[in-house]
């Protein structure tokens, strides 16, 4: 068994979701050799490669594709790159994180390799058997892969926690991918224009230890600031329901649910969230769930460890007053 990880980097470092994919690869087989593939251009790529080489003890080599073609992670160029690297390395498995990077690239690369990918894997029971949620997590499906190599997976980072001491890492060798035979057929047909991101000091929603979520009951973007204040106090990330996003209280990248972000923090606090199944799909694996809602019959109380029936406009200010400052 040999695994190729399609990794994402930002600001000269490997994203933590990509390191979770390494954890997933480890659970395929103890003996697996793990290669990490990075693409990009310029110094930030080389910096990320150095980080990759020493970020996890199970990584046996880092492959770097350095070219202007990879400055932005476009599916057209990445899927060709995967095809090229697979041809040379003949990996048994290719794994990436199930985020907007992996979801965009993996199926396209799989189609080029003529195999069926398996998306959103939450558990690996054998090197060819995987568990993934279906119907918004209301059922779990165990699937067996019986196709030819490579077996391609996208994995939920919330299900593969990283627990390594990176200081004990040996440096994995870094090698450059030979791009002389890179197939240019789709290159240039899609062009990056721009990216608008929310400037925020808060932790990333996907990886935060604590998530504070607000629903429609917040009533306005102005009121939603209370959620943000509380999040700040707890060092938490802010989430929102689809209703709150659709009402324009917060931008859509804060949506937690079946079609938004999947989170599994230590503490999830939901304020004015009714608990539609599509929302529960995004947070049901949280360790401790707190729900505050005026409606005692709200379905969120069925998954909450601690429920408080009450008016969030009274509860949040009281919490803000009584909670200790985050150390």
């Amino acid at each position, binding site marked *: 068994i040999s695994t190729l990880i399609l990794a994402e980097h930002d600001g000269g470092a490997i994203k933590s979701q990509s390191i979770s994919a390494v954890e997933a690869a480890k659970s395929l087989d103890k003996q697996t050799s793990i290669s990490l593939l990075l693409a990009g251009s310029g110094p930030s790529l080389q910096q990320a490669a150095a980080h990759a080489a020493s970020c996890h003890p199970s990584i046996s080599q880092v492959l770097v594709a350095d070219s202007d073609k990879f400055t932005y992670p476009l599916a*057209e160029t990445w899927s060709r790159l995967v095809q090229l690297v697979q041809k040379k390395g003949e990996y048994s498995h290719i794994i990436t994180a199930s985020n907007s990077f992996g*979801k965009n690239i993996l199926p396209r690369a799989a189609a080029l390799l003529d*195999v069926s990918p398996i998306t959103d894997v939450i558990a690996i029971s054998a090197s060819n058997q995987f568990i993934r949620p279906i119907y918004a997590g209301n059922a*779990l*499906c165990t699937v067996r892969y019986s196709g030819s190599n490579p077996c391609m997976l996208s994995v939920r980072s919330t299900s593969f926690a990283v627990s390594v001491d990176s200081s004990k890492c040996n440096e994995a060798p870094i090698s450059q991918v030979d791009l002389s035979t890179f197939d240019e057929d789709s290159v240039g047909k*899609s062009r990056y224009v721009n990216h608008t991101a929310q400037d925020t000091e808060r932790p990333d929603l996907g990886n935060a230890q604590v998530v504070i979520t607000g629903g429609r009951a917040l009533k306005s973007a102005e009121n939603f600031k209370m959620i943000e204040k509380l999040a700040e106090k707890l060092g938490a990330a802010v989430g929102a329901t689809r209703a709150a996003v659709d009402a324009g209280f917060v931008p859509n990248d804060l949506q937690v649910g079946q079609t938004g972000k999947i989170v599994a923090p230590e503490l999830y606090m939901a304020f004015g969230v009714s608990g539609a199944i599509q929302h529960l799909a995004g947070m049901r694996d949280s360790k401790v769930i707190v729900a505050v809602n005026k409606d005692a019959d709200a379905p969120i109380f069925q*998954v909450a460890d601690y429920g408080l029936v009450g008016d969030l406009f009274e*509860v949040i200010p009281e919490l803000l007053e009584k909670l200790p400052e985050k150390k």
Partner: protein
Amino acid sequence: MKIMVAIKRVVDYAVKIRVKSDKSGVETQNVKMSMNPFCEIALEEALRIKQSGLASEVVAVSMGPTQCVDTLRTGLAMGADRGIHVESTAALFPLTVAKLLKALVEVEKPGLIILGKQAIDDDCNQTGQMVAGLLRWPQGTFASKVMLDTEKQVATVEREVDGGLETLCLDLPAVITTDLRLNQPRYATLPNIMKAKSKVIKKYTPQELNVEVKSDIEVVEVTEPPKRKAGVLISSVDELIDKLRNEAHVI
């Protein structure tokens, strides 16, 4: 320009699904079925493009058992011009669907394919990317805004990505998959439902399209997710803070 839209018949989003006791799947007998919500958004976008004069025809495609015709009729009642039904009783996985769509593209020669980003039954989120790959067309997935320039033959697509929005410019022909906030799909009106009855739905079999229906994935079992154990109701903020600190140890 012709736009092809792929639509899937799924268990209605409001139905509380039940896992079959033999663990072979989810109960779909006597359950309300509807068009996948993301596919409705895809069709709506195609119809709006046609209304703005940038497309000449919208062709809706569905694949699966006979009943898919009902879903296609809904699409025709929303405003699609024609339907294509690829009939198959065997389970169709995304790779097969993508190959069938590619075969239909060779027949229909659309300038744009729009699909939902995922179906709410298997939650795969694969078909659009796969058909784009097979066709070597550029892809704009998870679109929240689409702008077409038929003179320059490009589509500008705003995409929902982790931590913000990304804008891409794609040469046509291209594949676009839709996210939730792209538009609000219309309801079919009664006159349009009547009109839809006389619109044409062409049937194909996978054999006619030279696509072998096979799968490299087997479903071993489908089970209920573990239930969370019932929580407790508490009565005050002080009690909540106490529980979080001294019982759950999370603050």
